[in-house]
């Protein structure tokens, strides 16, 4: 893996990377001296780059919660009664158009794969979010882990101080998404595979060591706490103590990585390039986290796409923001040599109705909708599936959430048909019903 200028990155200062510095200084002095100024620099050392590659692929999920309109994004229907007010523009792929609100994506369609034939069942948000983030509908009392948890478990490094699964979402509310966020994300994988949440009001508090405590004192306190807790855990066979220890370990890791969660540490030029909105800023932060060791970052911003009213007023703002985020993210990842290893997904929980309601809105529509994938393991320049002339139903190559997840897992190098190996758990697979990945979308 190669990276560009070190000015884009900051060392999170974690002990793990201190160890890396020592390794470099001891074993690979010539390369190491030049590389210690940043995380990215570390990866320019061949041995470490190979180690990083071995660690597997990464994923950024641009979670378009509330459900965007396919007509105003990837599947415009110009000249039809369902088209809406925005026109369609030609992309660099012959014969392929997208909404006029997506000129930047139109110019990099050779890097994108768009599925225009999503057809799913849930038509309400909570159920839709559940199905499209977990890959299947519920089977109580068992809770299937969310995509980020599976990817973190399969590809992440649990011993890394950098959180492997991060949710960036500044909106504390979100209606059904709020309820969903309050639920069990990691499911049967266990809480250690749940996300660390950050962003906006969810800036992680108290991550910085108080100035009144020296680093030495801090380490001494932690050593004492760890010794006593472990002793208690061992003496009492206490699962609770083990849980506390795991939580402390996580906090220790977070403290060492605090700069990764500080938007203000990101270069101003990058921040301007991504755009001012919270979603854009957190997409940039997602890139930064992925560069520095996170495995799965989910970027959300409440539930802004649920435009039952003000459909066009909202989409005129949200879609250009998404368009720019996709362009900047893929361009950055490509420039850094990370695109082949980083899967970028942009989707919501369903689509919007072809017809407009009285309140100038589009309502929920799972029958025929679109989403996008790009990067790691995905073949660019593919538009898969199609809808009928007015976008009312899928006309060819129907895709449900299982096939989508089979495709995502395969692109990430995860066997979609592998069984979860968890004691006392009934037979569950990464993807149920032997759903096959979409071969046309895979590299």
């Amino acid at each position, binding site marked *: 893996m190669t990276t560009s200028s070190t000015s884009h990155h900051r060392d999170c200062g974690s002990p793990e990377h201190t160890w890396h510095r020592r390794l470099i200084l001891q074993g690979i002095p010539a390369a190491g001296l030049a590389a210690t100024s940043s995380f990215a620099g570390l990866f320019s050392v061949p041995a470490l780059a190979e180690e990083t590659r071995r660690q597997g692929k990464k994923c950024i999920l641009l979670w378009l919660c*509330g459900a965007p309109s396919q007509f105003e994004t990837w599947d415009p229907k110009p000249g039809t009664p369902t088209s809406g007010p925005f026109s369609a523009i030609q992309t660099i792929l012959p014969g392929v158009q997208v909404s006029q609100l997506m000129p930047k994506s139109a110019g990099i369609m050779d890097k994108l794969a768009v599925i225009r034939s999503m057809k799913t069942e849930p038509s309400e948000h909570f159920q839709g979010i559940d199905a499209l983030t977990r890959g299947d509908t519920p089977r109580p009392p068992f809770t299937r882990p969310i995509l980020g948890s599976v990817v973190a478990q399969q590809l992440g490094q649990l011993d890394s101080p950098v959180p492997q699964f991060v949710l960036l979402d500044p909106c504390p509310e979100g209606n059904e998404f709020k309820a969903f966020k309050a639920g069990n994300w990691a499911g049967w994988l266990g809480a250690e595979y749940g996300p660390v949440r950050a962003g906006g009001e969810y800036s992680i508090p108290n991550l910085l060591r108080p100035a009144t405590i020296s680093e030495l004192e801090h380490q001494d306190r932690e050593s004492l706490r760890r010794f006593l807790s472990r002793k208690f855990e061992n003496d009492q066979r206490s699962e609770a103590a083990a849980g506390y220890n795991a939580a402390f370990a996580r906090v220790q890791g977070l403290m060492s990585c605090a700069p990764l969660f500080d938007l203000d540490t990101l270069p101003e030029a990058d921040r301007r390039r991504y755009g*001012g909105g919270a979603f854009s800023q957190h997409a940039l932060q997602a890139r930064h986290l992925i560069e520095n060791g996170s495995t799965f970052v989910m970027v959300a911003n409440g*539930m802004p796409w649920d435009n039952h009213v003000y459909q066009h007023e909202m989409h005129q703002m949200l879609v*250009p923001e998404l368009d720019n985020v996709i362009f900047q993210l893929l361009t950055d990842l490509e420039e850094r040599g990370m695109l082949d290893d980083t899967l970028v997904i942009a989707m919501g929980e369903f689509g919007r109705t072809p017809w407009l309601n009285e309140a100038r809105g589009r309502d929920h529509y799972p029958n025929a909708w679109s989403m996008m994938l790009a990067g790691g393991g995905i073949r660019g320049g593919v538009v898969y599936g199609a809808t009928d002339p007015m976008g009312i139903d899928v006309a060819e190559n129907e895709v449900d959430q299982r096939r989508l997840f089979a495709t995502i897992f395969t692109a990430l190098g995860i066997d979609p048909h592998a069984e979860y190996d968890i004691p006392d758990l009934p037979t569950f697979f990464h993807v149920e019903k032997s759903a096959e990945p979409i071969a046309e979308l895979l590299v």
Partner: protein
Amino acid sequence: MPAIELKRTTNFRLPMAILGASLAADESTLLTGCMDGVYLSSVEAGTSTRVAQHSSYVSGVAWLPDQSHYLSAGYDGQMQWFDTATNKATRQQQIHEFWSWDMAVSPDGRLIASVTGQYLAGGYRYEPQPEREPSVVVLDAASGEILWKLPHVPSVQAVCFSPDSRYVAAGNLMGEVRIWDCNDGSLRSSWSTDEFTSWGIIKSHCYLGGIFAMRFTPDGQHLLLAGMGPMHDPMAGNGKQLWQKWAWQQEQPDKVAQINKDDGGEGLMEALAIHPQKPIFAMGGRLRGGDWNAALFDLNSGERLATLKTGYRVTGLQFSADGNRLIVTGTQGQPKPSREGSWEPFGRVEFYELG
């Protein structure tokens, strides 16, 4: 002022949503701007003919006062002039890069104004970006020459002229009103009210709403604004039906009246009309909660005089020249197509007699 009875006398439909309407001076023909083009309708027969199209929705239409021409403006940013005698377009002019949200013809027929602006995320809290093109354009109605390009903050969603045609006012997403002198393009007044705009807390951290209709009072001293009160969740569309009346000519513009607290239900108000003789105005829009979506008010006292529950979203209101009729236009929700692929008409036109 005594309550007014409204009696429906005319009712017909157009194929798709009506976003703008204007009754001809002889009151026999209704000009409408719809999602799918410009229509002329016979009021008596209730029949309609599409005479032109834009490449997107038609957002506004108007007759020139001498009735020689009529105009349309659309979400394609284009304005079209039509010869009334032939119904042929005599001029097509691109006046905005983005939509024409609203347009107006000055009472003397000399000027046309159109407003535009795309709401784009500017800051972390989704403050609007500065305009990328002039948000307000004033044209010579006869020649189409652009006389003034005036700055505002996008999106600018409503525009109107003063009764003496001297001033043009425009209101935006953020509840900011700007008024310019059409003689020299100078800004004469500006103020903000945050009572029409919502910042989403529940679902969306961004701004929505704003001023959707505005009219000067006949004496030119006041400006009426219409829209919807702020909401926690703008996408619920459940803000209070709202009008405000502002004295704008003083150094510090002052809100002198607004809808009585108990008179308003919930829903976005996007149409205003001033009665030609009496101190009465009409406001209409969408019913989200409550028992009316169009109503008449006393211009002086603010008292509500009559209500309508139309069963569709009102996008246009106009009084007949004699003030005896109220023309209400709008749209129902777009229905699902039939199995054969046809669509039931959902643009609505109604005429009401004022008792």
